[in-house]
Protein backbone atom coordinates (compact mmCIF):
# COMPACT_ATOMS: atom_id res chain seq x y z
CA UNK A 1 0.00 0.00 0.00
CA UNK A 2 1.48 3.40 -0.93
CA UNK A 3 2.21 5.62 2.03
CA UNK A 4 -0.29 8.46 2.44
CA UNK A 5 1.20 11.92 2.88
CA UNK A 6 0.55 13.14 6.43
CA UNK A 7 0.47 16.94 6.56
CA UNK A 8 1.42 18.62 9.84
CA UNK A 9 -1.04 21.18 11.16
CA UNK A 10 -0.21 23.53 14.02
CA UNK A 11 -3.45 24.62 15.67
CA UNK A 12 -3.65 27.59 18.01
CA UNK A 13 -6.80 27.00 20.02
CA UNK A 14 -8.56 29.42 22.33
CA UNK A 15 -8.71 28.25 25.94
CA UNK A 16 -12.41 29.17 26.30
CA UNK A 17 -13.94 27.58 23.23
CA UNK A 18 -12.09 25.67 20.51
CA UNK A 19 -9.68 23.99 22.93
CA UNK A 20 -12.68 22.80 24.97
CA UNK A 21 -14.36 21.70 21.76
CA UNK A 22 -11.31 19.63 20.88
CA UNK A 23 -11.47 18.21 24.41
CA UNK A 24 -15.15 17.41 23.89
CA UNK A 25 -14.35 15.72 20.60
CA UNK A 26 -11.92 13.56 22.55
CA UNK A 27 -14.24 12.67 25.43
CA UNK A 28 -17.03 11.98 22.92
CA UNK A 29 -14.61 9.57 21.22
CA UNK A 30 -15.00 11.21 17.84
CA UNK A 31 -12.49 9.92 15.33
CA UNK A 32 -10.69 12.44 13.16
CA UNK A 33 -7.37 12.92 11.40
CA UNK A 34 -4.42 12.82 13.83
CA UNK A 35 -2.51 15.56 11.98
CA UNK A 36 -3.07 18.42 14.40
CA UNK A 37 -0.60 19.63 17.02
CA UNK A 38 -2.70 21.75 19.36
CA UNK A 39 -1.25 24.79 21.12
CA UNK A 40 -3.56 26.21 23.78
CA UNK A 41 -3.66 30.02 23.90
CA UNK A 42 -5.79 32.18 26.17
CA UNK A 43 -7.51 33.85 23.21
CA UNK A 44 -7.36 33.77 19.42
CA UNK A 45 -6.37 37.43 19.80
CA UNK A 46 -3.18 36.22 21.51
CA UNK A 47 -1.97 34.63 18.29
CA UNK A 48 0.85 36.89 17.19
CA UNK A 49 1.40 36.68 13.39
CA UNK A 50 4.96 35.74 14.34
CA UNK A 51 3.63 32.44 15.77
CA UNK A 52 2.03 31.60 12.44
CA UNK A 53 5.13 32.51 10.44
CA UNK A 54 7.35 30.56 12.79
CA UNK A 55 5.14 27.50 12.43
CA UNK A 56 5.43 27.70 8.65
CA UNK A 57 9.16 28.45 8.87
CA UNK A 58 9.68 25.33 10.97
CA UNK A 59 7.88 23.11 8.52
CA UNK A 60 4.16 23.18 9.33
CA UNK A 61 2.06 22.37 6.26
CA UNK A 62 -0.91 24.25 7.64
CA UNK A 63 -1.86 26.55 10.50
CA UNK A 64 -5.29 26.61 12.10
CA UNK A 65 -6.53 29.25 14.51
CA UNK A 66 -9.65 28.41 16.53
CA UNK A 67 -11.56 31.11 18.39
CA UNK A 68 -14.95 31.94 19.89
CA UNK A 69 -17.86 32.94 17.70
CA UNK A 70 -18.21 36.69 17.03
CA UNK A 71 -19.75 38.35 20.07
CA UNK A 72 -18.71 35.50 22.38
CA UNK A 73 -15.09 36.45 23.13
CA UNK A 74 -14.19 35.98 26.78
CA UNK A 75 -12.20 39.23 26.48
CA UNK A 76 -14.89 41.13 24.51
CA UNK A 77 -13.04 41.64 21.22
CA UNK A 78 -9.97 39.40 21.00
CA UNK A 79 -11.52 37.31 18.25
CA UNK A 80 -12.27 40.42 16.18
CA UNK A 81 -8.60 41.36 16.41
CA UNK A 82 -7.71 37.82 15.39
CA UNK A 83 -9.99 38.14 12.36
CA UNK A 84 -8.40 41.44 11.26
CA UNK A 85 -4.89 40.03 11.61
CA UNK A 86 -5.91 36.83 9.88
CA UNK A 87 -7.32 38.67 6.85
CA UNK A 88 -4.17 40.75 6.45
CA UNK A 89 -1.77 37.90 7.17
CA UNK A 90 -3.57 35.67 4.68
CA UNK A 91 -2.95 38.26 1.98
CA UNK A 92 0.72 38.52 2.95
CA UNK A 93 1.17 34.72 3.01
CA UNK A 94 -0.34 34.57 -0.46
CA UNK A 95 2.36 36.87 -1.75
CA UNK A 96 4.94 34.66 -0.04
CA UNK A 97 3.69 31.62 -1.91
CA UNK A 98 1.65 30.07 0.91
CA UNK A 99 -1.80 29.12 -0.38
CA UNK A 100 -5.07 30.12 1.29
CA UNK A 101 -5.93 26.52 2.20
CA UNK A 102 -2.84 26.30 4.39
CA UNK A 103 -4.02 28.99 6.78
CA UNK A 104 -7.44 28.84 8.35
CA UNK A 105 -9.43 30.67 11.02
CA UNK A 106 -12.49 28.98 12.48
CA UNK A 107 -15.00 29.96 15.13
CA UNK A 108 -15.78 26.83 17.16
CA UNK A 109 -17.62 27.03 20.48
CA UNK A 110 -17.01 24.71 23.43
CA UNK A 111 -20.14 22.74 22.47
CA UNK A 112 -19.05 22.04 18.88
CA UNK A 113 -16.85 18.96 19.18
CA UNK A 114 -18.28 17.69 15.91
CA UNK A 115 -17.12 20.86 14.17
CA UNK A 116 -13.51 20.22 15.22
CA UNK A 117 -13.69 16.87 13.52
CA UNK A 118 -15.18 18.34 10.32
CA UNK A 119 -12.70 21.23 10.12
CA UNK A 120 -9.60 19.14 10.78
CA UNK A 121 -10.63 16.39 8.36
CA UNK A 122 -11.41 18.95 5.69
CA UNK A 123 -8.13 20.79 6.20
CA UNK A 124 -6.10 17.58 6.03
CA UNK A 125 -7.85 16.67 2.79
CA UNK A 126 -7.07 20.06 1.24
CA UNK A 127 -3.45 19.92 2.41
CA UNK A 128 -3.08 16.49 0.82
CA UNK A 129 -4.19 17.99 -2.49
CA UNK A 130 -1.61 20.79 -2.13
CA UNK A 131 1.17 18.38 -1.15
CA UNK A 132 4.24 19.01 1.02
CA UNK A 133 5.69 22.51 1.26
CA UNK A 134 9.14 23.62 0.17
CA UNK A 135 11.23 23.92 3.36
CA UNK A 136 12.49 27.33 4.41
CA UNK A 137 16.22 27.81 3.84
CA UNK A 138 18.22 28.33 7.00
CA UNK A 139 21.07 30.77 7.50
CA UNK A 140 24.59 30.00 6.30
CA UNK A 141 26.07 31.02 9.65
CA UNK A 142 24.42 30.86 13.02
Amino acid at each position, binding site marked *: MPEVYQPKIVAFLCNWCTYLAADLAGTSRLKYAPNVRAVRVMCSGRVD*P*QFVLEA*FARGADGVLIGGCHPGDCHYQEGN*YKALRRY*ELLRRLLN*QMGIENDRFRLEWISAAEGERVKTVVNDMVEKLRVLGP*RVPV*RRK*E*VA
Partner: protein
Amino acid sequence: MKPAIAFYWCASCGGCEEAVVDLDEALLDVVNAVEIVFWPVALDFKVKDVEARPDGSILATFINGAVRTSEQHEMVRLLRAKSRVVVAFGVCAQLGGIPGLANLSDAKGIFAEVYRDGVTPQRLHRHNGHALALPEFFDTVSALDAVIDVDYYVPGCPPTPNIVRDAVTALLGAELPPKGAVLAPDKALCEQCPRKETRPEKLLVKEFKRVHQVVADQQTCLLAQGLVCQGPATRAGCDARCIRGNMPCTGCFGPTSRVRDFGAKVLSATASVIDGNDESSIAQAMNGLPDPVGTFYRYSLPSSLLGRRLE
Protein backbone atom coordinates in the same frame (compact mmCIF):
# COMPACT_ATOMS: atom_id res chain seq x y z
CA MET B 1 49.37 54.17 15.16
CA LYS B 2 45.81 55.17 14.23
CA PRO B 3 43.23 52.38 14.12
CA ALA B 4 42.50 51.06 10.62
CA ILE B 5 38.94 51.42 9.34
CA ALA B 6 37.35 50.08 6.16
CA PHE B 7 34.09 50.68 4.30
CA TYR B 8 32.44 48.42 1.79
CA TRP B 9 29.19 48.34 -0.13
CA CYS B 10 27.21 45.40 -1.42
CA ALA B 11 23.70 45.55 -2.93
CA SER B 12 22.86 49.12 -2.02
CA CYS B 13 21.97 52.45 -3.59
CA GLY B 14 24.88 54.52 -2.30
CA GLY B 15 22.73 56.36 0.22
CA CYS B 16 24.67 54.86 3.13
CA GLU B 17 27.90 56.23 1.66
CA GLU B 18 26.19 59.62 1.49
CA ALA B 19 25.26 59.21 5.13
CA VAL B 20 28.96 59.00 6.03
CA VAL B 21 29.70 62.17 4.08
CA ASP B 22 26.65 63.78 5.71
CA LEU B 23 28.58 63.86 8.95
CA ASP B 24 29.90 67.17 7.55
CA GLU B 25 32.66 68.66 9.70
CA ALA B 26 32.41 65.79 12.15
CA LEU B 27 33.73 63.55 9.36
CA LEU B 28 37.05 65.40 9.58
CA ASP B 29 37.34 64.49 13.25
CA VAL B 30 36.68 60.86 12.39
CA VAL B 31 39.22 60.92 9.56
CA ASN B 32 41.79 62.45 11.93
CA ALA B 33 41.21 59.74 14.50
CA VAL B 34 41.50 56.77 12.13
CA GLU B 35 43.32 55.50 9.07
CA ILE B 36 40.97 54.50 6.25
CA VAL B 37 42.44 51.46 4.51
CA PHE B 38 39.66 50.54 2.09
CA TRP B 39 36.67 52.49 0.74
CA PRO B 40 35.81 51.66 -2.89
CA VAL B 41 33.38 54.53 -3.36
CA ALA B 42 35.87 57.21 -2.31
CA LEU B 43 39.45 55.97 -2.23
CA ASP B 44 41.65 54.02 -4.63
CA PHE B 45 42.57 50.91 -2.68
CA LYS B 46 42.46 47.49 -4.32
CA VAL B 47 41.26 44.15 -3.09
CA LYS B 48 44.87 42.93 -3.00
CA ASP B 49 45.65 45.70 -0.47
CA VAL B 50 43.08 44.14 1.84
CA GLU B 51 44.29 40.61 1.09
CA ALA B 52 47.85 41.64 1.99
CA ARG B 53 46.85 42.75 5.51
CA PRO B 54 47.20 40.37 8.43
CA ASP B 55 43.98 38.88 9.76
CA GLY B 56 42.28 41.03 12.39
CA SER B 57 44.39 44.08 11.53
CA ILE B 58 41.41 46.30 10.69
CA LEU B 59 39.74 47.66 13.81
CA ALA B 60 36.31 48.03 12.24
CA THR B 61 34.73 47.53 8.83
CA PHE B 62 31.44 49.20 7.99
CA ILE B 63 29.51 47.21 5.40
CA ASN B 64 26.35 48.54 3.80
CA GLY B 65 24.03 46.80 1.35
CA ALA B 66 22.59 43.31 1.18
CA VAL B 67 24.43 40.29 -0.23
CA ARG B 68 23.14 39.17 -3.62
CA THR B 69 26.20 38.25 -5.75
CA SER B 70 29.14 35.87 -5.36
CA GLU B 71 31.53 38.84 -5.45
CA GLN B 72 29.82 40.47 -2.45
CA HIS B 73 29.82 37.11 -0.73
CA GLU B 74 33.60 36.76 -1.19
CA MET B 75 34.34 40.35 -0.23
CA VAL B 76 32.42 40.30 3.05
CA ARG B 77 34.09 37.05 4.04
CA LEU B 78 37.50 38.55 3.27
CA LEU B 79 36.70 41.69 5.26
CA ARG B 80 35.37 39.60 8.13
CA ALA B 81 38.68 37.78 8.38
CA LYS B 82 40.67 41.02 8.34
CA SER B 83 38.50 42.91 10.85
CA ARG B 84 38.13 42.76 14.58
CA VAL B 85 34.68 44.37 14.41
CA VAL B 86 32.17 44.24 11.55
CA VAL B 87 29.34 46.74 11.55
CA ALA B 88 26.25 46.19 9.40
CA PHE B 89 25.69 49.77 8.33
CA GLY B 90 22.20 50.68 7.20
CA VAL B 91 19.08 48.57 6.94
CA CYS B 92 20.10 46.66 3.77
CA ALA B 93 23.07 45.11 5.59
CA GLN B 94 21.07 44.79 8.80
CA LEU B 95 17.83 43.23 7.51
CA GLY B 96 18.11 42.97 3.72
CA GLY B 97 16.55 46.30 2.82
CA ILE B 98 14.86 47.32 -0.41
CA PRO B 99 17.03 44.98 -2.56
CA GLY B 100 15.67 42.18 -0.36
CA LEU B 101 12.24 42.57 -1.93
CA ALA B 102 13.78 40.69 -4.86
CA ASN B 103 13.18 37.61 -2.71
CA LEU B 104 9.64 37.68 -4.05
CA SER B 105 11.25 36.46 -7.28
CA ASP B 106 14.49 34.67 -8.23
CA ALA B 107 17.45 35.29 -10.54
CA LYS B 108 15.68 33.84 -13.56
CA GLY B 109 12.53 35.86 -12.93
CA ILE B 110 14.46 39.08 -12.41
CA PHE B 111 16.58 38.63 -15.53
CA ALA B 112 13.48 37.85 -17.58
CA GLU B 113 11.83 41.03 -16.31
CA VAL B 114 14.82 43.37 -16.61
CA TYR B 115 16.32 42.13 -19.87
CA ARG B 116 13.04 41.19 -21.52
CA ASP B 117 13.67 40.41 -25.19
CA GLY B 118 17.08 42.04 -24.88
CA VAL B 119 20.63 40.89 -24.41
CA THR B 120 20.97 38.85 -21.23
CA PRO B 121 24.39 39.15 -19.56
CA GLN B 122 26.43 35.96 -19.81
CA ARG B 123 28.50 34.90 -16.82
CA LEU B 124 31.56 34.14 -18.92
CA HIS B 125 32.67 36.03 -22.01
CA ARG B 126 35.66 35.02 -24.16
CA HIS B 127 37.31 37.28 -26.68
CA ASN B 128 40.68 36.94 -28.41
CA GLY B 129 41.92 34.44 -25.90
CA HIS B 130 40.82 36.57 -22.93
CA ALA B 131 38.03 35.66 -20.57
CA LEU B 132 35.83 37.98 -18.57
CA ALA B 133 33.66 36.53 -15.82
CA LEU B 134 30.74 38.18 -14.07
CA PRO B 135 29.88 37.32 -10.49
CA GLU B 136 27.06 34.88 -9.90
CA PHE B 137 23.67 36.51 -9.26
CA PHE B 138 22.00 34.61 -6.41
CA ASP B 139 18.34 33.59 -6.33
CA THR B 140 18.05 34.88 -2.79
CA VAL B 141 19.22 38.18 -1.29
CA SER B 142 20.63 37.89 2.25
CA ALA B 143 21.16 40.23 5.14
CA LEU B 144 24.83 40.46 6.14
CA ASP B 145 24.51 38.31 9.26
CA ALA B 146 23.21 35.40 7.19
CA VAL B 147 26.64 35.27 5.53
CA ILE B 148 29.16 36.41 8.14
CA ASP B 149 29.26 37.06 11.85
CA VAL B 150 28.21 40.67 12.56
CA ASP B 151 29.19 42.56 15.71
CA TYR B 152 27.03 45.67 15.54
CA TYR B 153 24.15 47.09 13.56
CA VAL B 154 23.54 50.69 12.60
CA PRO B 155 19.93 50.92 11.40
CA GLY B 156 18.31 53.27 8.92
CA CYS B 157 17.74 53.96 5.25
CA PRO B 158 20.14 55.60 5.45
CA PRO B 159 21.40 55.91 9.04
CA THR B 160 20.79 59.47 10.16
CA PRO B 161 23.81 61.67 11.04
CA ASN B 162 23.05 61.63 14.77
CA ILE B 163 22.92 57.82 14.75
CA VAL B 164 26.17 57.56 12.77
CA ARG B 165 27.90 60.00 15.10
CA ASP B 166 26.72 58.14 18.20
CA ALA B 167 27.76 54.80 16.69
CA VAL B 168 31.28 56.02 15.85
CA THR B 169 31.62 57.54 19.32
CA ALA B 170 30.48 54.28 20.91
CA LEU B 171 32.99 52.25 18.87
CA LEU B 172 35.92 54.57 19.58
CA GLY B 173 35.02 54.74 23.29
CA ALA B 174 36.77 52.86 26.07
CA GLU B 175 33.99 50.34 26.56
CA LEU B 176 32.45 48.63 23.54
CA PRO B 177 28.68 48.01 23.46
CA PRO B 178 27.62 44.35 23.91
CA LYS B 179 28.12 42.23 20.78
CA GLY B 180 25.07 42.10 18.54
CA ALA B 181 23.78 45.48 19.69
CA VAL B 182 21.75 47.69 17.41
CA LEU B 183 23.28 51.12 17.96
CA ALA B 184 20.02 53.07 18.38
CA PRO B 185 17.47 53.53 21.19
CA ASP B 186 15.54 50.35 22.02
CA LYS B 187 12.05 51.84 21.97
CA ALA B 188 9.33 52.52 19.42
CA LEU B 189 9.31 55.59 17.22
CA CYS B 190 5.91 56.70 18.61
CA GLU B 191 7.82 57.55 21.81
CA GLN B 192 9.84 60.17 19.92
CA CYS B 193 7.02 61.35 17.70
CA PRO B 194 6.20 65.07 17.81
CA ARG B 195 2.54 64.14 17.20
CA LYS B 196 2.42 61.66 20.09
CA GLU B 197 -0.13 63.70 22.06
CA THR B 198 -2.62 63.65 19.17
CA ARG B 199 -2.77 59.87 19.05
CA PRO B 200 -6.27 58.93 20.22
CA GLU B 201 -6.71 56.60 23.22
CA LYS B 202 -8.69 54.16 21.08
CA LEU B 203 -7.27 54.38 17.58
CA LEU B 204 -9.58 52.99 14.89
CA VAL B 205 -9.33 53.31 11.13
CA LYS B 206 -12.21 52.70 8.71
CA GLU B 207 -10.10 52.78 5.60
CA PHE B 208 -6.37 52.85 4.96
CA LYS B 209 -5.24 55.43 2.47
CA ARG B 210 -2.08 55.62 0.42
CA VAL B 211 0.06 58.75 0.67
CA HIS B 212 -0.82 60.03 -2.79
CA GLN B 213 -4.55 59.86 -2.05
CA VAL B 214 -4.73 62.40 0.75
CA VAL B 215 -3.35 65.72 1.89
CA ALA B 216 -2.38 64.79 5.42
CA ASP B 217 -2.96 67.18 8.27
CA GLN B 218 0.40 68.36 9.59
CA GLN B 219 -0.38 68.19 13.29
CA THR B 220 -2.24 64.97 14.04
CA CYS B 221 -1.14 61.34 14.28
CA LEU B 222 -0.77 59.98 10.73
CA LEU B 223 -2.05 56.53 11.66
CA ALA B 224 -5.22 58.13 13.03
CA GLN B 225 -5.60 59.78 9.61
CA GLY B 226 -5.65 56.37 7.96
CA LEU B 227 -2.08 56.38 6.68
CA VAL B 228 -0.06 53.23 7.36
CA CYS B 229 2.48 54.70 9.75
CA GLN B 230 4.83 52.04 11.12
CA GLY B 231 5.92 54.07 14.14
CA PRO B 232 4.25 51.74 16.67
CA ALA B 233 6.61 48.88 15.75
CA THR B 234 9.69 50.68 14.42
CA ARG B 235 12.80 51.43 16.45
CA ALA B 236 13.32 55.07 17.40
CA GLY B 237 16.48 57.07 16.74
CA CYS B 238 15.73 58.88 13.47
CA ASP B 239 14.17 61.79 15.33
CA ALA B 240 10.94 61.19 13.37
CA ARG B 241 12.28 62.85 10.25
CA CYS B 242 9.66 61.46 7.91
CA ILE B 243 6.83 62.46 10.24
CA ARG B 244 8.28 65.99 10.44
CA GLY B 245 8.12 65.95 6.64
CA ASN B 246 4.44 64.89 6.92
CA MET B 247 5.15 61.40 5.63
CA PRO B 248 4.31 58.21 7.54
CA CYS B 249 7.06 55.98 8.91
CA THR B 250 7.95 53.12 6.53
CA GLY B 251 9.97 51.21 9.10
CA CYS B 252 13.58 51.69 7.95
CA PHE B 253 14.98 51.50 11.49
CA GLY B 254 13.67 47.96 11.83
CA PRO B 255 12.31 46.37 14.98
CA THR B 256 13.16 46.78 18.64
CA SER B 257 15.08 44.00 20.39
CA ARG B 258 11.94 42.12 21.50
CA VAL B 259 10.73 41.43 17.97
CA ARG B 260 11.90 38.55 15.77
CA ASP B 261 9.93 39.29 12.59
CA PHE B 262 9.45 42.98 11.91
CA GLY B 263 6.85 42.69 9.15
CA ALA B 264 4.67 40.39 11.24
CA LYS B 265 4.72 42.85 14.10
CA VAL B 266 3.84 45.86 11.95
CA LEU B 267 1.12 43.82 10.27
CA SER B 268 -0.26 42.95 13.69
CA ALA B 269 -0.22 46.57 14.86
CA THR B 270 -1.79 47.77 11.60
CA ALA B 271 -4.53 45.15 11.46
CA SER B 272 -5.48 45.78 15.10
CA VAL B 273 -6.61 49.35 14.43
CA ILE B 274 -9.05 48.40 11.65
CA ASP B 275 -12.54 49.54 12.56
CA GLY B 276 -14.54 46.54 11.44
CA ASN B 277 -15.72 43.25 12.87
CA ASP B 278 -16.74 41.34 9.76
CA GLU B 279 -15.02 40.20 6.58
CA SER B 280 -16.56 42.82 4.31
CA SER B 281 -15.75 45.90 6.38
CA ILE B 282 -12.26 44.55 7.05
CA ALA B 283 -11.75 43.93 3.32
CA GLN B 284 -12.97 47.47 2.67
CA ALA B 285 -10.36 48.90 5.07
CA MET B 286 -7.65 46.80 3.43
CA ASN B 287 -8.29 48.21 -0.03
CA GLY B 288 -5.64 50.76 0.85
CA LEU B 289 -3.14 47.97 1.50
CA PRO B 290 -2.71 46.36 -1.92
CA ASP B 291 0.83 45.08 -1.24
CA PRO B 292 1.29 43.73 2.30
CA VAL B 293 4.79 42.30 1.70
CA GLY B 294 6.02 45.51 0.06
CA THR B 295 4.51 47.54 2.89
CA PHE B 296 5.42 45.53 5.98
CA TYR B 297 8.64 43.86 4.75
CA ARG B 298 9.81 46.88 2.78
CA TYR B 299 13.21 46.72 4.46
CA SER B 300 13.31 43.30 6.07
CA LEU B 301 12.15 40.47 3.80
CA PRO B 302 15.47 38.50 3.80
CA SER B 303 15.67 38.54 7.60
CA SER B 304 12.01 37.61 8.09
CA LEU B 305 11.01 34.18 9.37
CA LEU B 306 10.18 32.95 5.87
CA GLY B 307 12.96 34.93 4.18
CA ARG B 308 11.68 34.66 0.64
CA ARG B 309 8.75 33.64 -1.48
CA LEU B 310 8.36 29.87 -1.32
CA GLU B 311 7.63 28.06 -4.57
